[in-house]
């Protein structure tokens, strides 16, 4: 097999192995080392190395070889996995994942991060003590002129002044790689190149370095962390770092060193919200100007995006899915039975003594099998949500470490299934909600203990099915949301009127308004700034909803609800004003004949229970009609039940969902359409949309007259 045919398989397998490796490492971290877990890690690395070797992918092969050497020592008992080694192993896994990404993007010959690779190799070598000849990794004490700065991480704009020694390029320093590396630590606001040192042609030596860089980085980090990125460059790079909290005077002194860059540098500082003149230095630097900050070059697309776009265009359409073998077998069995049944029906029909009843029975059998097959086929696209959840232990661990908090993560309901297409689109929004919960929800240890809570915050991911949807909950036992403060913040930001009357849950929903949170934090996870409004929009794009429950001091629950997408549904047909509407059958509870009471009453009494109802004629403005005999269809959605008053009940059948065109996107209450047996079009109701629209438009009167309680047979 060659790479051309095996690429996708190789990438998929490698990713599975890496996920397994990470899982085993995290197990070791929480539950201790064991032979079984260490073997799992070793086997993963070993298999990846083997596959890489088969295809001649030397970048991966060589790196994984080194990793395997070290793991061998661990396996033999001569190395124990302590915190630092754990971190190294996890980072090595991350780097291998990037090499795998490169293979997917047809860039297997390129190293995505040579600086990181070298750093990791050196660290691995140090642990393995492979040979005395290999340069032992000694963290170089960087000649970074550290200005008096807070040792704790600060958030804001760091200015770095980077000067290359004449022999830097010769020494193997890659300034562009260093800059790209910085780009991963935060948002690179500007890079200005000092070119004054470039000589004229006659004195120019092409392999010497004459350039320097003035760089602005918005990040949440420390001077040490930034210097360490340059550690391997040693003396070839002179680095000065100006952290956000430092006195501007020293940074401003730079301007005198770079007369040719002065106006541009001042402009960049102004835009970044930094003091750019000695006079302005009087103001506090932490006041960030609310100006959208430029990324390197004006007019040119950010190179990262351009490159990613190229990679995307080059990558072949990923149209392969993994399917459970058992399900495939079941499907094949059913198809076999269908063949038999269909033969039987044909024989029946062809026979001269064919009776109508026999034919109907044979066709009934065929129909039933067709239905089963349809279910099974669609079912093959379903995948457990555990696939999305599996990223989270690592993410939570990393974020908790970064923010210095303790988090216990519980995951339940990982078997709940949803369509494959939803899985990819859920991942980012879930990640951001979790990050939000850890960032703002869960308190630091001290605060928790003071509040009488256990030191470790509890974060629970749960998933389950409910009336045709999959529900995903993210629950934390942190601070909770305070509706009063949320309302106040929204007023301050000019998002709502001062006198706006909002209920508790409406206050919670305020966090989804664009502009609600301050400058959205750039996360390392997605590399882009994100706010909760983006999360909401991503969910709405997959027809999902998000509910918030919270109590101050107790915690918050985010509840996401997504309709399971199936192209065919069982529908319950009803008629309203001569039009056929279809209600998803699994949402129908029961049907009742209704003797209509006087107008204006919107609550029915169904066997003593209160039931709000809507008249579809009114909702869809189909005219008053004669309301002699109507029917009431009781539908459920989550915890609610609502009655739908229709003219006639028509019965069940399967409906193939035909999506409505783009222009109907804003329609409330209708989700899609279907073609009936006679060729006419029926509209499929969007029950949640209908219910919320109804809630908004109708105010429910107090209990009115009873609705006649002659029950019709239930649809199922």
């Amino acid at each position, binding site marked *: 097999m060659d790479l051309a045919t095996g690429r996708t398989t190789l990438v998929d397998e490698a990713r599975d192995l890496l996920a397994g490796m990470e899982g085993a490492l995290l197990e070791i971290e929480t539950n201790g080392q064991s032979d079984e877990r260490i073997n799992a890690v070793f086997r993963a690395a070993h298999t990846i190395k083997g596959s890489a070797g088969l295809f001649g992918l030397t970048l991966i092969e060589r790196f994984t070889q080194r990793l395997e050497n070290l793991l061998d020592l661990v396996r033999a008992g001569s190395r124990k996995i302590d915190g630092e080694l754990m971190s190294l192993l996890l980072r090595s896994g991350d780097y291998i994942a990037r090499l795998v990404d490169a293979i997917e993007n047809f860039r297997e010959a390129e190293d995505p991060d040579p600086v990181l690779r070298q750093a990791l190799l050196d660290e691995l070598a140090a642990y393995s003590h492979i040979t005395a000849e290999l340069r032992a990794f000694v963290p170089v004490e960087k000649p970074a002129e550290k200005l008096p700065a807070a040792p704790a991480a600060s958030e804001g704009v760091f200015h770095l002044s980077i000067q290359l020694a004449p022999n830097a390029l010769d020494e193997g320093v890659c300034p562009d790689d260093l800059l790209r590396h910085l780009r991963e630590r935060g948002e690179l606001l500007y*890079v200005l190149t000092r*070119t004054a040192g*470039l000589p*004229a042609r006659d004195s120019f030596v092409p392999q010497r*370095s004459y350039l320097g860089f003035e760089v602005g980085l918005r990040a949440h980090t420390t001077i040490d962390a930034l210097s360490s990125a340059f550690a391997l460059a040693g003396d070839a790079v002179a680095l000065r770092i100006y952290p956000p909290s430092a006195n501007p005077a020293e940074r401003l002194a730079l301007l005198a060193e770079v007369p040719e860059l002065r106006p541009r540098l001042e402009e960049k500082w102004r835009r970044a919200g930094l003091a750019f003149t000695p006079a302005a230095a009087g103001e506090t630097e932490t006041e960030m100007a609310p100006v959208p900050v430029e990324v390197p*070059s004006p007019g*040119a697309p*950010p190179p990262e995006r351009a490159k990613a776009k190229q990679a995307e265009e080059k990558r072949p359409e990923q149209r392969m899915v993994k399917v459970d073998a058992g399900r495939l077998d079941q499907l094949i069995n059913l198809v076999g039975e269908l063949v038999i049944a269909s033969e039987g029906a044909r024989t029946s029909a062809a026979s001269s003594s064919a009776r109508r009843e026999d034919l109907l029975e044979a066709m009934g059998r065929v129909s039933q099998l067709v239905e089963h097959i349809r279910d099974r086929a669609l079912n093959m696209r379903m995948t457990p949500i555990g696939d999305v959840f599996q990223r989270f232990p690592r993410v939570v661990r990393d974020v908790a470490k970064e923010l210095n908090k303790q988090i216990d993560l519980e995951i339940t309901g990982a078997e709940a299934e949803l369509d494959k297409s939803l899985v990819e689109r859920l991942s980012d929004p879930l990640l951001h909600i979790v990050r939000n919960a850890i960032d703002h929800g869960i308190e630091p240890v001290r605060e928790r203990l003071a509040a009488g809570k256990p030191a470790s915050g509890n974060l629970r991911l749960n998933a389950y099915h409910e009336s045709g949807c999959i529900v995903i909950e993210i629950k934390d036992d942190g601070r909770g949301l305070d509706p009063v403060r949320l309302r106040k913040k929204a007023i301050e930001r000019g998002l709502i009127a001062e006198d706006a009357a909002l209920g508790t849950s409406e206050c919670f929903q305020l966090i989804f308004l664009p502009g609600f949170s301050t400058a959205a934090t750039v996360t390392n996870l997605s590399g882009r700034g994100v706010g909760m409004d983006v999360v909401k929009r991503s969910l709405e794009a997959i027809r999902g909803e998000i509910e918030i429950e919270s109590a101050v001091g107790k915690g918050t629950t985010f509840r996401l609800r997504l309709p399971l997408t199936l192209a065919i549904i069982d529908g319950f047909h009803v008629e309203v004003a001569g039009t056929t509407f279809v209600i998803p059958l699994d949402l129908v509870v029961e049907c009742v004949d209704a003797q209509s009471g006087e107008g204006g009453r919107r609550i029915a009494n169904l066997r003593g229970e209160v039931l709000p109802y809507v008249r579809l004629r009114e909702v869809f403005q189909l005219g008053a009609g004669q309301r002699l005999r109507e029917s009431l269809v009781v539908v459920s959605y989550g915890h609610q039940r609502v009655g739908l008053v229709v003219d006639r009940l028509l019965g069940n059948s399967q409906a193939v969902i035909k999506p409505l065109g783009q222009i109907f996107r804003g329609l409330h209450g209708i989700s899609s359409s279907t073609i009936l047996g006679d060729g006419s079009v029926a509209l499929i109701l969007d029950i949640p949309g209908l219910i919320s629209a109804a809630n908004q438009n109708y105010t429910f009167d107090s209990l009115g007259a009873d609705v006649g309680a002659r029950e019709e047979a239930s649809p199922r």
Partner: protein
Amino acid sequence: MVPFTVSEPKPGILSIGGDLSLAAAPAFAELLFSSLDAHAALHVDLLNVTEADISTLQIMLVAVREAQRQGKELRWLGYGLCVEDLVNLVDLNHDLGGPLAVVWE
């Protein structure tokens, strides 16, 4: 053996492809300067360059300045992806004055 290829589709137009990173630096510099000496105007197409680093940019900058000193025109006709990436990263679009889009007759 230099790691890059050169062709001259028309006089005064150079088309360079391949690896222009550090190892190629002396040859690349020599090529640019001698071509500049030989023509009143020089157009250089870098669209097919597959590798570039800071040394490449340095040489391009010196060449631009040299052209100015000689009162000649030097324009870059296309940037390969790695070149574009690099130029954007260090914000030297303005200093290098390229690339031009050109329609061949």
